[in-house]
């Protein structure tokens, strides 16, 4: 051993000890933060365990997930009009267009040009509006058919959303036989997830075939939306969802989220199902509440078999415009931590997100890329997914 090491000065000794103590303290804090003791100190979620019953299975048919066909046109129109806080009814999109250009549209102008034709002559109404609207070929729509089997085998059919373009949605309804189901009054209710153009503005298409179908909307609907329900020719029983959890049938409930949404919309409703011996299935239109809030709310409020998240379907709103920001990775990782066994995503989830899910090994149910759906990475138009037996 050299004399140098023997003759450590007091100053160097103190410096070394202090450095060691500081480094040790940081290391200790880091290790503690990952320990069970640290997690025990976090506030526990108080679970209400609302028992909304049990059903045997749920089958979803994707009528249309392609809400629009050109991202650049959609985003460009919104930006040109003034951004994400602009009232959607002023964007000058069909069916509320007036030919006056960006941000100059109005509900009253638009509806006055077609009101007399609704709901029976939706083809002519759409043709009139196409001549007045910005990017008239861009609208598509979001809608799905949900078939629920009760424990005793009784079947129930519901629609979630009714799309946007009258022409596109009418064609999609015919392709999946929805028009006839509506005529035969086989579909027991239409749930509108939120007031946005691509989920709600196609309402006259449903009204054309059954204008008395029970209809559920969020209590945050604006006056224009409520008036549109009347102007579309609706003669049935409107339910304004105003409770956090509304049971529909055993094993099925409507969940309400009060959040501001882009382009002056307020609130989204989503659906929850408790599948016997499997667990919870969540179905969303666009999930503007955010997937984490959606999952957190279900965990905190609902009772479900095996206390397990079993499946999810619909728009999960991560990369709706097919851009990618590293921040989105956190949502992808967080979704994985809930442990869903079947993920049937599409629409505003984004193809990029679906690819990330697949790369992460998540159980994504692939699609067939038919009827203008862009890739097989997620469930496209005409594809089906079943949860339960």
């Amino acid at each position, binding site marked *: 051993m050299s004399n140098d090491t023997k003759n450590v000065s007091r100053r160097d000794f103190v410096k070394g000890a202090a450095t060691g103590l500081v480094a040790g303290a940081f290391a200790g804090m880091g290790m503690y933060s990952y320990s069970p003791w640290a997690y025990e100190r976090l506030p526990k979620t108080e679970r209400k365990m609302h028992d909304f019953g049990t059903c045997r299975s749920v089958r979803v048919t994707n009528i249309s997930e392609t809400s629009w066909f050109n991202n650049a046109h959609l985003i460009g129109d919104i930006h040109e009009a003034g*951004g*994400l*806080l602009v009232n959607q009814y002023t964007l000058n999109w069909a069916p509320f267009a007036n030919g006056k250009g960006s941000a100059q549209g109005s509900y009253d102008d638009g509806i006055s040009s077609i009101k007399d034709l609704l709901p029976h002559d939706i083809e002519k109404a759409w043709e009139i509006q196409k001549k007045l609207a910005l990017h008239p070929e861009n609208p598509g729509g979001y809608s799905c058919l949900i078939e629920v089997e009760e424990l005793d085998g009784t079947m129930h059919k519901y629609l979630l959303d009714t799309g946007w373009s009258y022409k596109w949605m009418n064609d999609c309804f015919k392709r999946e036989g929805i028009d006839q189901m509506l005529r035969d009054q086989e579909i027991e209710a239409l749930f509108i997830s939120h007031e946005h153009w691509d989920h709600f503005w196609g309402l006259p298409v449903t009204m054309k075939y059954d204008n008395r179908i029970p209809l559920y909307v969020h209590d*945050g609907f*604006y006056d224009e939306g409520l008036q549109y329900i009347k102007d579309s020719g609706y003669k049935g029983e409107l339910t304004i969802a105003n409770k956090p959890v509304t049971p529909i049938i055993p094993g099925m409930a409507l969940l309400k989220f*009060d*959040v*501001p*949404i*882009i382009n*002056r919309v*307020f*609130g989204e409703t989503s659906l929850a199902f408790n599948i016997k011996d499997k667990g919870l299935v969540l179905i969303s239109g*666009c*999930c*503007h*509440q*955010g*997937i*984490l*809030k959606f999952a957190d709310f279900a965990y905190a409020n609902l009772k479900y078999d095996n206390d397990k998240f079993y499946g999810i379907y619909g728009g999960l*709103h*991560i*990369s*709706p415009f097919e851009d990618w*920001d590293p*921040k*989105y990775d*956190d*949502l992808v990782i*967080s979704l994985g931590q809930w442990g869903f066994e079947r993920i049937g995503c599409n629409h505003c989830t984004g193809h990029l997100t679906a690819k990330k899910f697949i790369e992460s090994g998540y159980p994504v149910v692939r699609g067939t890329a038919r009827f203008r759906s862009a890739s097989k990475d997620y469930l496209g138009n005409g594809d089906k997914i079943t949860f339960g037996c």
Partner: protein
Amino acid sequence: MERRAFFRRFIPGSDRSSAPEALDANREVEQKPLSENECFLRAMAMGIDPATVTPGQLEALVSDAKPSQTTPKKEHADAEA
């Protein structure tokens, strides 16, 4: 120069009015946590779709932004308060 006056020169914003009530009121407004609705609206005013970020990221993104001019529907804003 007094010691206090000397050090005050190094504190940002110390040249503003020193009325204690006004300063306390400002501080209270600044420190009041944003409601979820306000966070969402501020994000949209910044061009961010709030559903595409985690709640923690949202709070961090909007914490320095100015309040938006658009308010949520009155009844919901009241309920939130």
